[in-house]
C-alpha cells in the first residue's frame, strides 16, 4: 500500500453500508451523513453491531475481539458486508463475505488476496467501552492496541512485527527442548528484529505524546497533565536503533540462566508495557472513571492526528456508548473538537438527547430496534 504522496486533507467518508446476516442484523441498507451519524435505541437492540460492521470492513477485526463465528447470524453460514467509501474524491466499493473460518475480500468487485492492501482503504478509529481494558487490562491488551496503532500509521511495521514473533517462537522452541545448539544465532537475530520493533513502538509513542496531552486538556477542560510512556525496564526510549539492539542483546545474555530455567525467553518487547500517568500518578489506581475515559479518548484523538500527519488521511471515528460515564462538560468538549475537524463520526447512544450537537450541525439519526433500522 502506498502512502499518500502529498499532504492533502482528504476526509475519509463512508457513504453507504449494506449488511446481510451480521449478528442480529438480517438485512440493512444505510446511507450516511458526511458528519454525524447517530444510532440510538434501547439496550440490546444491536446499535453496536452497526459500528462493529463498519470496523470490520476497515480492519478485518472486531473491536470487541469477537471471533468471525460470533459475528454471523445464528441461522446463517455466511455474513456479507458491503460499503462504498470516498477517499480524496476517489470512490471505492469494499465488500467482505465471511464464514466461520475464512473471508473473501473484494475491492470494486475484484477479489483482493492481500489483507495488507485491503486494510488501508478504510481507516477507522474506534472508541468503545471495551477499550477501557487499555487502562485496567493486561499488558498484552495494551501491546495489542499499540501494535495496531503503529501498523495503521506505518504499514512496514507488520513485517517487523511478524519477523520478531517468528524469531521468538523459533528461539523459545530451542529453550523448550533444552537443545541450545545454534541458540546464539537466534539470540542475535532476536536482538536485531526486537530492536526494530522497540524502535518503531517508542518512536510512535514519542510522536503521540504531545498531541495526546493537549487533547486530554481539551476534553477534560482541566490543567491535569496526562502522560504516557512506553515502558521497558532495560533501556531508555531515546536510544538509537543500534543502542537499543546492543542493550537488548546484553539483556538477553544476562538473562540466559533464568530463561533456561523457565524454558522461554524472558526479556524483550513481547513483555513491554505502556504506562499511563495523570499528574505523575498512575491513572489505573488514581483516576476516576471519567478521567480514565477521557484519557483513552484523548489517546484516540492523538492517534487520528498522527494518522493524518503521516498519511494525510483523516480516518472515520466510531464512538460506542460514549456518553456513558462522561459528564456533560466533557461530552461538550469532545463534540466541539469533532465539529471543528472534518471527521465523519458514528455514535451509539441510548439517549440521543445526551449528545448536545448544535442545531446547525449536519447529522443523520437511526433508531435501532431488534437489529433493524425503523
Amino acid at each position, binding site marked *: *500500500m*502506498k*502512502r499518500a504522496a502529498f499532504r492533502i486533507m482528504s476526509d475519509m467518508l463512508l457513504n453507504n453500508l449494506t449488511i446481510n446476516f451480521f449478528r442480529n442484523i438480517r438485512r440493512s441498507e444505510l446511507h450516511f451523513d458526511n458528519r454525524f451519524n447517530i444510532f440510538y435505541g434501547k439496550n440490546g437492540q444491536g446499535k453496536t453491531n452497526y459500528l462493529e460492521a463498519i470496523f470490520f470492513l476497515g480492519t478485518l477485526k472486531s473491536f470487541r475481539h469477537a471471533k468471525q463465528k460470533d459475528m454471523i447470524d445464528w441461522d446463517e453460514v455466511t455474513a456479507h458486508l458491503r460499503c462504498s467509501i470516498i477517499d480524496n474524491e476517489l470512490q471505492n466499493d469494499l465488500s467482505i463475505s465471511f464464514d466461520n473460518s475464512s473471508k473473501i475480500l473484494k475491492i470494486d468487485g475484484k477479489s483482493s488476496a492481500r489483507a495488507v492492501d485491503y486494510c488501508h482503504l478504510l481507516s477507522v478509529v474506534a472508541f468503545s467501552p471495551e477499550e477501557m481494558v487499555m487502562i485496567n487490562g493486561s499488558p498484552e491488551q495494551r501491546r495489542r492496541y499499540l501494535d495496531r496503532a503503529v501498523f495503521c500509521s*506505518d*504499514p*512496514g511495521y*507488520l*513485517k*517487523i512485527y511478524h*519477523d520478531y514473533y*517468528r*524469531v521468538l*517462537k*523459533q*528461539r523459545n*522452541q*530451542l529453550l523448550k*527442548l533444552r*537443545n541450545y*545448539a*545454534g541458540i*546464539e*544465532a*537466534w539470540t*542475535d*537475530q532476536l536482538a*536485531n*528484529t526486537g530492536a526494530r520493533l522497540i524502535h518503531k513502538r517508542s518512536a510512535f509513542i514519542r510522536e503521540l505524546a504531545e498531541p495526546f496531552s493537549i487533547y486530554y486538556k481539551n476534553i477534560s477542560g482541566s490543567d491535569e497533565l496526562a502522560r504516557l510512556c512506553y515502558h521497558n525496564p532495560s533501556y531508555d526510549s531515546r536510544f538509537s536503533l543500534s543502542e537499543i539492539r546492543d542493550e537488548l542483546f546484553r539483556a538477553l545474555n544476562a538473562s540466559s540462566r533464568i530463561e533456561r530455567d523457565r524454558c522461554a525467553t524472558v526479556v524483550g518487547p513481547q513483555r513491554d508495557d505502556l504506562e499511563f500517568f495523570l499528574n505523575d500518578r498512575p491513572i489505573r489506581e488514581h483516576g476516576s472513571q471519567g478521567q480514565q475515559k477521557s484519557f483513552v479518548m484523548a489517546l484516540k484523538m492523538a492517534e487520528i492526528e498522527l494518522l493524518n500527519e503521516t498519511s494525510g488521511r483523516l480516518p472515520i471515528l466510531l464512538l460506542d456508548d460514549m456518553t456513558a460515564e462522561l459528564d456533560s462538560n466533557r461530552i461538550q468538549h469532545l463534540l466541539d473538537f469533532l465539529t471543528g475537524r472534518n471527521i465523519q463520526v458514528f455514535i451509539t447512544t441510548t439517549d440521543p438527547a445526551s449528545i448536545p450537537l448544535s442545531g446547525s450541525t449536519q447529522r443523520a439519526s437511526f433508531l435501532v430496534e431488534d437489529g433493524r433500522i425503523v
Partner: protein
Amino acid sequence: MLHNSHSLTRLVGELKKLPGIGEKSACRLAFHLLRSPANIIALAEALNEVKSRVRFCSVCFSITEDDPCAICRGNRDDSIICVVEEPQDVLAIERSGAFRGKYHVLHGVLSPLSGITPADLKIAQLLERVSNSSIKEVVIATNFSVEGEATAIYLTGLFRNHGVRVTRLAHGIPIGSDLEYIDSATMQRAVQGRSEV
C-alpha cells in the same frame, strides 16, 4: 470413479503426493498419461534414470550425476565459496553467470520449530572445507527469511576466527522494477541499506 482400476488409483495416489497437485489435477494427469502410452514409458524411464543416476556431490552437496560435480571439478575460483540453502539456488546463481567460485549446499536452514538444528545441515562439512583449503571468502546466500537470516548469523559466528572474509548477498530493490510498486518493508530496508555511488 477409479474403483475398477487398482493401478490407476495407485497412480493418482502417487501423483497426489507431489507439491501443488490435488485430487483433481492428479486425475487429469493420470488420464492424460493413459491416453498417450509413449509418454508414459518415457516418463517412467526418466523417473528411473533420475533415481539411479542423480545423487549429491560429496564435496558441495549439490545435485550431480558424476561425483564430484562439474562445478567442483571445473576450473573455478577456489578462493571463494557461496553457501546456499537448496540445490535449486545453485542453478539460480549459475543462470546469472555472476559468480565464478564454488558452492556449498546446506540442504535447509536453521528452524527449531521444524526440528532443524546445525547438526541437521551440511555445516560441519562446510567448516571442514573452509579449514582445509585456500578459501578466502564465504558468501552467504541463504534466503532473506527469518530462518535464512538466523542461519547467516550462525555461519558468520562460526567463521569469525577462521581468518576468512564473510559476506552476505545484498538485498533491496529488484533490477528493472518501478519504485512505486515496491512494498514498504522492502523500501524501508533499501533506504537503510543504501550505498555510496
